[in-house]
């Protein structure tokens, strides 16, 4: 297959992954809640794509994942779109130029990125509006969502690693 065809099928695979995770996340009754929360599957996809791709494709995948995540919550572009666009761009740059995304390094990227993303979300959604009992919500939901998103991203790392190396002969 030519390089162009490889790239096309690779990005198609990422987009299909995003659509599938959007459906899984938003359809009522499909994903069970564990410890009061569900993982943010679109964040898992965006982060694991970002560690393999270069900055601009990583940023675009992050932006699409963010828009879909925000769409599930509110009818406007919000905190997930902007923060995932920034985080995926930075992860894309760092993984290509600073710390290569081997598995252990990926865990480090994921821990920092997921932590930052959900703390930012908590800040915008709860701290700034001054929601009452916000810390009980943080311990009951946000922490669980952070941990689950981090753990769920591990199989996505291997899936997207497989897609990247299978459909990008230069990288092998």
């Amino acid at each position, binding site marked *: 297959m030519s390089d162009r065809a490889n790239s096309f099928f690779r990005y198609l695979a990422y987009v299909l992954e995003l*659509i599938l995770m*959007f*459906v899984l*996340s*938003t*359809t*009522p*009754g*499909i*994903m069970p809640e564990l410890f*009061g*929360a*569900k*993982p*943010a*599957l679109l964040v898992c996809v965006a982060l694991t794509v970002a560690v393999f791709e270069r*900055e*601009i494709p990583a*940023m675009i995948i992050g*932006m699409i994942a963010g*828009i*879909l*995540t925000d*769409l*599930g*919550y*509110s*009818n*406007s*572009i*919000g905190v997930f*779109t*902007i923060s995932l*666009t*920034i985080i995926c*761009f930075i992860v894309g*740059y760092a993984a290509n*130029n600073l710390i290569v995304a081997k598995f252990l390094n990926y865990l480090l990227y994921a821990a920092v990125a997921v932590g930052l993303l959900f703390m930012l*979300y908590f800040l915008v959604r*709860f701290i700034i*509006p001054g*929601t*009452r*009992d*916000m810390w*009980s*919500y943080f311990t*009951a*939901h946000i922490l669980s*969502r952070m941990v689950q998103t981090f753990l769920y991203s591990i199989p996505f790392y291997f899936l997207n690693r497989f897609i990247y190396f299978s459909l990008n002969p230069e990288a092998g």
Partner: protein
Amino acid sequence: MKEFFQSPKIKIFLSVLLVLIMLSVFTRNVENNVISTTLNTVTYGMSKVSAAASADSSSKGYDELQHENELLSKANRELRAKLVDYYNVKEENTRLWMFYGLKKSHEDYTLIPSTVLRRDTNDEFGSFTIDKGTASAVSVGDPVIGENGLIGWISEADAYTAKVVTILSPQTSIGAADNATGDTGIITGSAKYAEAGRTTFTKLNSENKVKEGDIVTSSGASGIYPQGLALGEVIEIGYDTYDSSYYAVIQPYDEIGKVLDVAVIADFEGQGEILKKESDE
């Protein structure tokens, strides 16, 4: 590193970020905004199919279906009728009759039955999207009812979908009254109780007589919600040191986190009248 900051990549990144920030600012709280209408139109069919599939698979367990199947087979033999999906239709019919019953008892209500299209992982207070929008006369602020009472209100609407903020959310503020004692207060969600699917009846007078088991309904005081819609039952009374007032914990009659069929009250007698009077004055 210096080269990176002068590269076209960083310029593309900053331009995209600027566009996203501008879109975020200009589309927030705008009814029928182009972005949400476009995105919801693109994802509408997909969400509709998956929501329908999920409703079919989650509404009944295997044993129940098997039992139902046996009953239907027996009924088939006895009656020689071909009613394959009889019980599913009957169940849906019961729900629709409930809304019809409400319509009959409140002829002034304009009800728009709708289905929950999707719930998000970020649905911390049970918010969800329904499959009706401004094209079906749904507008922001309209009350949303479940099978047993008021469960939320429309916070955002585009042409084909609308967001519902539930009574579990702190964004909600509904004038309510205790049916037994006449005490009035505000129904608003609390992060502390939302997890258990409960809401709170706040700002109660220090001499209130609210007690466990009382039924709380909308007071209709603001003209935003009709009077007399059930909100739930009092299960606990507490004192809020935060604003030095009494509150009651309310258990809604509907399981808000799992509700699949709802109806929007698009119009009712007296809607907006009090607000209008206040603005005229």
